[in-house]
C-alpha cells in the first residue's frame, strides 16, 4: 500500500458542501465495488485511495447540481480501467456484444428457487466473480448500488441501451453459471 499524504487545497477553492461530507458516506460502498472489480484487497485499497485523491483534486470542477455518486463512481471505474488489473480485464471484453439483443429466457426448473432454499451465498458470489468485468460492474451498479439506468450510463459513460443489454447478458450469464454450479458441472 502506498503512503498516504494529506492533500491540501486552498481555502478559497473549497465549495460550500465539503468533499468530505459528500465522499465519506460512500466509502464502504466504493470499497466494496472496488474489491469486486479488482478481486484483491490491496488493489482495492489502492484503487479507492487513488479515486479519493483524484476526486478531491478535481472537486473544484464538480458541478454541485450534478450527481456526485455517479461522478465519483466514474472516477473509480476509469481509474480501475487504467490499472494493470483493469487493463487485463478490459482485454477480455468481447467486441460487438453491446448491441440490442433479445434476452435469453430462463428455462423452467430455475436455479433461483434452489438457491433460496439452500441460502448458498457463496455460490452466487462465485458466479458474480466469474462474470467478465464489463458485465460484473453493470450488474453490481444496478443490484447493489441500486443505480438507475441513467446513472449507470453516466457512470460507465455508455448509452442506456448498452446498459440494458449488458444487464440482460449479465443476468443470463449469472443464471447459467449458477445452473452449472448446482448441477455440479
Amino acid at each position: 500500500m502506498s503512503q498516504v499524504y494529506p492533500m491540501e487545497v486552498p481555502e478559497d477553492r473549497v465549495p460550500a458542501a465539503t468533499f468530505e461530507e459528500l465522499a465519506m458516506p460512500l466509502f464502504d460502498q466504493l470499497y466494496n465495488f472496488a474489491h469486486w472489480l479488482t478481486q484483491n484487497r490491496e488493489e482495492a485499497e489502492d484503487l479507492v485511495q487513488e479515486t479519493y485523491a483524484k476526486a478531491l483534486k478535481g472537486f473544484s470542477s464538480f458541478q454541485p447540481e450534478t450527481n456526485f455518486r455517479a461522478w465519483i463512481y466514474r472516477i473509480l471505474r476509469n481509474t480501475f480501467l487504467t490499472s494493470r488489473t483493469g487493463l487485463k480485464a478490459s482485454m477480455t471484453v468481447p467486441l460487438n456484444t453491446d448491441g440490442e439483443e433479445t434476452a435469453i429466457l430462463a428455462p423452467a426448473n430455475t436455479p433461483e428457487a434452489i438457491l433460496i432454499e439452500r441460502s448458498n451465498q457463496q455460490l452466487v458470489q462465485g458466479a458474480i466473480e466469474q462474470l467478465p468485468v464489463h458485465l460484473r460492474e453493470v450488474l453490481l451498479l444496478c443490484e447493489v448500488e441500486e443505480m438507475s439506468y441513467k446513472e449507470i450510463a453516466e457512470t460507465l459513460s455508455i448509452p442506456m441501451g448498452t446498459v440494458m443489454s449488458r444487464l440482460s447478458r449479465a443476468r443470463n450469464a449469472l443464471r447459467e453459471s449458477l445452473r452449472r454450479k448446482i448441477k455440479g458441472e
Partner: protein
Amino acid sequence: MPGDEWQPKLDTYLDGELPTEVMRELDAHVRSCPSCAAEVLNRLQLKRAVQASAAKRYLPTAEFRERIQKSITIRRRPAFRWGWLTAATVAALLIAGALTFYVGLQKLRREQVFSELADLHVTTLASPTPVDVVSSDRHTVKPWFQGKIPFTFNLPELKDSEFVLVGGRAAYLGQTPGAQLIYQVRKHQISVFIFQDRALSRDLSTDTPVMRKLSFNAKTWSQDGLRYFVVGDAAPEDIQSLSQLLKKAERS
C-alpha cells in the same frame, strides 16, 4: 399482449425502469398470467440473491478508513499562512506608517517653534527698544528678571570671548513666560531664549545640533529643567560657542 412478448421486459420491469403506463399494463398482465408471474418471481429471487451476496461483501478495515479520512481532511494551509503573513505585513506597515507620521509631526511642530522663535528674534531686533534691560553686565541683567519669570538662570562670563551681552527682555512662547537675552558677536545679534522645560510642549523635548532655519542658525537643549534656544544669523560655530558658554555657566 401475449406472455412471450412481455418476457424481455421483465428485468426492466423489476428494475422499475419501464414507463408508468407500461408498468401498469405489465402489473395487470402478471396478475393474470401464471407463467409470467413465475418468471417474475424467479428473477426477483435472483435479484435478491445478488443483493444479499454482493452488498457489503467486502468491508474496508478501520485503519484504511482512517487513512483515507486523514488524507481528505482539507488543510487550509495556504490561505491560513498567507492570511497571517498578510496580517503581519499590514500590521508592520501600519506601525511603520504611524511612527513615520509621529516623527514627521514632531519634526513639523519643532520647526514651527523654531520659526516662531526666529520671528521673535527678528521682531526684537526690528524694535526701537529691542531690550528692556540694557546692560552688558550679567549681574545687572539677571536680577532684572526677578519677579518677571517663574525661574532663575545663570549667565556666562564673557570676558575672554568675542560675545557681548546687549541686554534682555521677557518673552512668551506658547503662553509660557521666559527670558530673551541678546548677545552680539562681531556685527551679528544672537537671541538666547530660556523657558521652563516642563512648561513647553513635549515636541521640543529633543535636543538638536545647530540647525539652519529661515537663514538663521538655531540650537536647543535642556539643562537643569530649563530649555535653551539659541537663534541668530551668526555662523554655526558662533552659535555653538555661545551654547557651550551658557551650558558651562549653568553648571557652575
